[in-house]
Each structure stands twice: as C-alpha cells, then as structure tokens.
C-alpha cells in the first residue's frame, strides 16, 4: 500500500443480494478509477460478528473508507455519481 491509496472495508451479510450488489459496484469503480491504488477488505458480518461489533456496524452492506480520509456509506452503492463525489473523483478521469 502506498500513501494516498484508497483503503476500504466492506461489510456484507453473506451472499445476500444488496451485499453482492455493493461489492460489484465498489469493485467496478475501483477498477475504472482507482486501478492499482486501492485496497478492499470484505468482512462477512454473519461470520465475523466481532469485527462488526468492534466497528459498530449495524446495517449491511456498510462501506467504510479508512484512507485517505474516513467516510461511511450505507447501501448498495448504486448511486455512482454520489460515491465518486465523496471520493473526490468526480469529473475527468485524472488518474489512469
């Protein structure tokens, strides 16, 4: 991991539909816009309840952006424009 890389923790509820959608949407954006400079950890709250308790995760899917700054997302991440805005990636693709 390099400084300035995007680091995510995605909390999913097993193979449930909303969680699968969230993971697909996150990976799509990362591959398109953050290629080579992102890291995704997927946590299944049904398996690892302690991680969920520790991070106070109540809903799934929840996406925590750990770096470069903290942000929290609830839901399937279906609104790509909104997600890009929070990630400060709106507008032209300047990284690839």
């Amino acid at each position, binding site marked *: 991991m390099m400084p300035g890389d995007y680091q995510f923790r995605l909390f999913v509820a097993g193979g449930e539909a909303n969680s699968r959608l969230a993971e697909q949407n996150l990976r799509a954006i990362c591959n398109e816009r953050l290629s080579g400079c992102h890291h995704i950890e997927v946590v299944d*709250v049904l398996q690892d*309840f302690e991680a969920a308790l520790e991070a*106070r995760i*109540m*809903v799934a899917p929840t996406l925590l952006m750990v770096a470069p700054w903290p*942000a*929290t*997302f609830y839901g399937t991440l279906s609104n790509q424009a909104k997600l890009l805005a929070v990630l400060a990636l709106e507008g032209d693709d300047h990284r690839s």
Partner: protein
Amino acid sequence: MAEPLPPPNFLPGRRKCPTRIEGLDQILEGGLPVGRTTLITGGPGTGKSLFGLEFLIRNALAGEAGIFVSFEEQASALRDNAATLGWALTPLEQSGKLFLFEASVNPKAVVTGEFGLQAFLSILARKLKVMNAHLVVIDAIDLVLTLMNDPVHERNELLALQQWLTENDLTVLMTVKAQYTAEQTRQYQFLDYLVDCVICLDNRLIGQLSTRRLHVAKYRGSGFGSNEYPFVIAPPGITLLPISMLELSHQPLGAKFPSGVAGLDPLLGGGFRRASSILVTGCTGAGKTILSGTFAQAAGTRGEKVLYVSFEESAAALSSSMTSCGIDLSSAIAAGSVYLLTSMPESMGAEQHLVRILALLRALQPHFLILESASACQRMGTPQAAFEFLVRLINRCKEAGITILLTNQTSGFRQTHEISGIGISSIIDTILVLRLVEQGDEMRRQLLVMKARGSHHSPCYHHFLITDRGIVLDQECH
C-alpha cells in the same frame, strides 16, 4: 399420532415474564408475553427507555440476563440516566447479566441504495447466545429505519425483524416514538396489529402539574387492567399505583389505645382503635394541630413510631407552636420516635407525593401516620387528584395496619365529613369535630365525636381548653 385437541373454550394460559416494575405486573396480570414483542409507545420524555431499562435491571437482579439495544444513546449516557434513579449498571454488566448494546448509526453516513439490519441481528444473536439471554429491549429503532427513507422498505425491515425476534423465542420490549406523520397516523402504527401487547405512555399537564399515565391498549390472549394508571419516576424506580385494582385487604380494626389527650378516651369508649383511620375536622384555629401533636407525643412516650406529614407548616413553625402548648415535638424528633416530613403541596404532583410517603412508610414502618391536612392536598392539583391521593394513602395504611390521623380544615359551609367535596366517610372510622362557639363574650372550644366505628361514643359536644399542658377536656356534655 396427532396430539389430542384441547377441549373447546380452553384458553391455554399465556406464559408471562414479570417486569418486576412496581404495579405494572398487576396491570399486565403477570407481566409481558414470553417469546413475543411488546410495544411501548409515547412522546418524548414519557419514560419509554426507562421502562425498558428497569425491566432488564430488575430481571438481571433476579438472574435473568438481558440486552438493551440503543440506537440512540451511548452506553455511558444510559449508565448516567440509570444512576439518577439509584441503579448501578456496571456490576450487572460485569456479571454478564446485562449488556448495553450501542447500535447507533453514523448520522453522517452517505446512503445510496438499499440496506438491511443483518449485521445488527448477527451481533445480537451471538451476544444472546453467549449470555444465554432471552430478554431484549430495542430502543429507538426508528433512528436506523428512517435512514432508509422509504416507508415500504422500513416496513419490510420491521416485519423481518419482528419475525426474527419471534423465531428466536425472545421476549422483547420495543420502544416506538409516538410521532405523527402528516397523515395523522403514528409512525409504524401497523406494528400495533403485529405485536401481542401495546403499552402507551403519556405525560400531560393537569392543573399546572405534569402527570404521567400508562395504559395498556392491547394484550392478545390475556386479561389486563384497561384503565389509565398514573405513574411516577423517582428513585428507586418507576412506580405505578393501580387504584382501581386495590383489593380490599384491610386489616381488621385492632385493640383500643389511649389518644394521649386527657379526658378524650372515655368519650371514645376507651380510646382510638389500632389500624383505624381518624379524621379531625374543624375551622382554622380550632386546635387540630395541637391534637395531632398530643397524639404524636403520646405515641412516642409509648415507644411507638410516627410519620408526621405536614403540608401546612414548616418544621420550625410546627415545633414552636407545639412547644407553647407543652408538646415537645423537637425531642420526639431527635429521639427518632417522630419523623417529620414537611413539604409544599404544590411542589410536585399528587402521585409523586404519594410515592414519597409510601416509600417512607416502607422504610420507617411506623405505627402511626399523621397527615396535615387533607384539605391542603387539593393544592397538589385537582380535587380528583387529591381525593385519589387520600384514598390510596388511607388504603395503604389500612393494608399495613397503620393507624392514620388526618386533619381537615373546614369552612363554615362545607360538610365536616367531606374532603375535596367528595365524601370519604366510608373509609374513615372515627371523626372528631372541633369547633369554636361564641358564648357570651368569649369563644369556647368544643369537641364532638361524630363517629367512632366499632365503639360506643359520647353523642354530644364537650368543652375543651388548650393550655400550656396540652388539650384539657371537660367530661360534661354541653
């Protein structure tokens, strides 16, 4: 082979989980439905969370583990709230009987697309298993649901949650705010139909005093007290006083005992009866307080305890007016035979006054309660509130075998046996009437035993004097 069907009209008794909140189990005829969800609804500040917290604390103390899920407050805030009522949560948490589950969601989170409560349920399920707990309070779940910003989705999540709770055989108390939407239906009102028991709380102003009330709107498969019940939140917890459920379990009138007033006992056929209720009524200045003081002092001399409640005078004023008549109230207080409680009737509602006095009765276990005066109780709010206060207090004394002496100030017009315009003479055993009568160029004091249940008593007025040695009665009829 199929199980035999139960006979027709057979209603299996619902299993109940006691709340252990004073008075509530009586109203719920045993407690909350086991393995089911109970809704507790009310506006802000009505005490929903405290009901939940006390339910878990009392059960934890009795050995039943429980989890308090708060979507609103931090665990530290819950501990602080509990401390104001004298409850210490930390020992219960350490012994694994109580878990404060902070389930608050991040208000700054960006919501995009659907989500569900699976993470919450996953944690809850594991915690329940580890603690071997079956009791859950879910506080302010609306905070997470409103994030969904979609009424249909909210509703579906609640339905799923409700189903999950039932499948897991949990006894649940869920708080729901009584907020009204533009359509004038309460948020999540459909839940009322889904759950087995609905408890409604409110807090309203009656005669400038706030009064808390509880009523049970529904209890599937069980009887319940269907009235509105006043309740009080004060240490050591919530207290409900279901007046309409009072069973008449009064102690029978006991043996006679001396009144302490020289010359009065023969007029009463030998003295007052123990466990009786005595009303001393008269206009201002007739000598009611002096009679009460004499009564209290005599009890102290016999080595018996008195709780003296005055809504009329301060402790200092009371002591000094007694001293001038030869009654040493201060020494009796110092010796512990008299416990004096003075307060302004307006300072709190009738319920709060009642709870305070009942707590003192429990703590002190006195032989006597003196209350000055019944008429001042009207200043606690409405005449109805004062009447209920008095009836409950007299009832409690009669159940506990405590002799109660009440004074009542009458104006010229009011009937002597009425308090607050409502007759309570049926629960009063003895009535003494004190009056001032003009005779020539002097005012003379007279006393009449108007009623003395279970005793032969004098039928006429007797003169008496207030001297520096207390009240002195003239035995002759006048």
